[in-house]
């Protein structure tokens, strides 16, 4: 893995740039079809939004970018702690809190829409929702998913009912209250952006300060407990940060979608790395970029709600990561698989040629032709021909007289290596695993290509007395024409 890291980073940065171009391009395309303005107007608009010339846009874009950063950072631990669904439940549970806070504020002060009160109500109810889940888990034998589903729907239903009551109140001006459900960045004020900035700072500082503690709790909470770490407290701190990001993000993304901002960037980052530290900052970057482009696009097109665009941008990152992720993306996996397949074909051909030379009756004057090799194992003529071509390009073999194949000096060297590994493994299987000599060729064939160099050294040490010389003799009879049964 170590030697792969530099290329991983390089690939990641290249793909990031590619993604940015894609997002920009798709934005241009959407805008081009959706609006009838000329291209000039659009590009000035684009410039205006993304260079922050407009005050309102500046506030919104900066706010959502920082929100994405905070959500991406804390979401990493949320996902690794396997609490993704809990965050969904607690974000839905905020709705009755918002509605109740609105009703109470309307009754007491006459003006229901006071953001601090609404956020406080949301926070209180997200904690109540979480406690409800814990209570169900503790006092019933219901499984986690059922407990989460019950709490999510019950609190959301309660919230909708209370919202209905709130909108029917004469005073208070409940219009726009529903923006907490679906999100509305346009109404974001400077003070909101400031609040988000502070939250993002808190999330970032906490993720760095408590990196060691959080990762221990996420990996092995029981062990942490035995070591005297206050696991409950650390869990509470993590969930408190999640609640914080959720309630702060409610207004911008809406309570249905805020969970996506917590989960998707972290899940995307996992495809690029095997290291927690890298995953953490990558997730933060993905979240921030999602917020940045999402709100930017939404600012360009008034009828596209920001929350939805932000989440869609995040999922674009996710899809690209899923496919192109340098650590475990689909392309990476299939490239690895293809390389292994090629390696196996190369090694098989090298070994076949080597064994042919060893056993051919007329000395090693003439090598086999392709058609003679075909009968040795189950490979298709085209695959064999491709392998021959590949090895010729690598100067491993050359054509002798009358289309016969011969190993070059380099080829002989690698072939000996392959044959040595094969026979070591065969000998080991016969002497240590009681595999019948007749079957051993095939069994060894499956494993030898993936043997670790370290393991080969161990094999050699184990078998030192049996194999003797540099190239062990085959433990079973070799037949030039037949090859592997």
């Amino acid at each position, binding site marked *: *893995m*170590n030697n792969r890291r530099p290329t991983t980073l390089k690939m990641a940065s290249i793909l990031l740039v590619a993604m940015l171009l894609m997002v920009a391009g798709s934005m241009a395309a959407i805008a081009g079809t959706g609006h009838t303005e000329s291209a000039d107007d659009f590009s000035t608009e684009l410039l205006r939004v993304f260079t922050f010339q407009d005050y309102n846009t500046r506030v919104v874009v900066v706010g959502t970018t920082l929100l994405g950063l905070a959500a991406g950072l804390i979401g990493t631990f949320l996902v*690794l702690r*396997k609490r993704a669904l809990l965050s969904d439940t607690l974000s839905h549970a905020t709705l009755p809190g918002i509605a109740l806070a609105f009703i109470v504020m309307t009754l007491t002060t006459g003006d229901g829409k006071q953001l601090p009160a609404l956020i406080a109500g949301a926070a209180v109810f997200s904690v109540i929702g979480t406690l409800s889940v814990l209570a169900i888990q503790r006092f019933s*034998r219901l499984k986690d998913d059922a407990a989460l589903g019950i709490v999510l729907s019950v609190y959301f239903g309660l919230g909708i009912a209370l919202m209905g009551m709130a909108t029917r109140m004469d005073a208070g001006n409940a219009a726009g209250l529903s923006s907490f459900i679906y999100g509305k960045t346009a109404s974001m004020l400077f003070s909101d952006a400031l609040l988000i900035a502070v939250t993002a700072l808190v999330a970032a500082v906490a993720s760095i*300060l*408590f*990196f*060691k*503690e959080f*990762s*221990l709790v*996420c*990996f*092995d909470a*029981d*062990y*942490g*407990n*035995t*070591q*005297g*770490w206050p696991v409950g407290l650390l869990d509470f701190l993590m969930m408190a940060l999640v609640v914080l990001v959720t309630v702060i993000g409610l207004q911008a993304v809406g309570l249905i979608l805020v969970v996506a901002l917590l989960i998707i960037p972290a899940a995307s980052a*996992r495809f690029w*790395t*095997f*290291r*927690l530290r890298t*995953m953490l900052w990558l997730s933060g970057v993905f979240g921030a970029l999602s917020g940045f482009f999402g709100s930017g696009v939404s600012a360009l097109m008034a009828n596209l709600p920001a929350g939805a665009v932000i989440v869609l941008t995040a999922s674009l990152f996710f899809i690209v990561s899923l496919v192109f992720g340098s650590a475990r993306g689909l392309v990476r996996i299939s490239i690895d698989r293809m390389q292994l397949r090629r390696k196996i074909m190369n090694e098989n051909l090298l070994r076949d040629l080597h064994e042919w030379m060893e056993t051919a009756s007329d000395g090693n004057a003439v090598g086999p032709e392709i058609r003679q090799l075909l009968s040795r194992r189950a490979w298709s003529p085209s695959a064999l021909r491709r392998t021959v071509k590949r090895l010729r390009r690598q100067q491993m073999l050359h054509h002798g007289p009358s289309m016969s194949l011969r190993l070059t000096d380099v080829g002989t060297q690698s072939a000996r290596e392959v044959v040595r590994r094969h026979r070591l493994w065969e000998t080991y299987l016969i002497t240590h695993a009681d595999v019948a000599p007749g079957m051993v060729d095939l069994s060894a064939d499956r494993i030898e290509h993936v043997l670790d160099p*370290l393991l080969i050294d161990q094999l050699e040490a184990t078998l030192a007395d049996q194999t003797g010389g540099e190239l062990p003799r085959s433990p079973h009879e070799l037949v030039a024409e037949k090859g592997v049964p």
Partner: protein
Amino acid sequence: MAATPHHATETKSTAGIGDSSAPLWVNDLTVAYHRKPVLWDIELNLPEGRLIAVVGPNGAGKSTFIKSVLGLVPRASGAVTIYGKSYKAQRHLVGYVPQRESVDWDFPVNALEVVAMGLYRKIGWLRPVGKRDRQIALEALDKVGMANFADRQISQLSGGQQQRVFLARALAQDARLYFMDEPFAGVDVATERAIIALLKELKAAGKTCVVVHHDLQTVPTYFDHVVLLNMRLVAAGPVETVFNEENLKKTYGGRLTLLSQALDEYAKGPRFPTDKG
């Protein structure tokens, strides 16, 4: 802590019940899951510097025993002391090797980082893992023959190698008393040998190891003390005196099926008014 003899314990006279210096002293321990008792009235006293096997059939409460001692599972009743004090006061002396299946091995860390977790307590709050700590972790990995795998992602290790990483994490702590939960379960020959060598080394250094073990055949060769457990303590003592056919029959035979059936019925039935759940 009066020395009350108990019919099931045959501990050595040098380490009688209530001995305050004993590595582990357990009095009247009862543990229940969902009202069903898993461990009943365990009375135990383990001697210092021994390799101690905890054996018993599946569901006998071997892991639960260790977890309740370490405070991971709440105790319904009973008292546990480690070197004469509560576990909380003595946890720096205790190393714990959980079952391999208890964690997600797809977690994005490498072997060295897992081992370093054994040092987190020593490093303390908020401070990062330093160079010196890495060195200690690497030495611990070396002791289990895994120094070459320090940079390896834990998801890419074999089951036995993962087990050895867990052992190294406990070793890095440099404890006096080790609890190991099924370290031999499903491991390869190389790992088994490495664990045995390690146990011998720990014993030579005067450490005490309490090991949950499932292979009866190897008990006399690997261990010198044994605890036979099947919900109740059947016997505990040196292998040569306790590990005999009669005790094994008591542990593995059908004698306790009636008891466990009765407990099943109890757990299903309505709650008694005094029951605390």
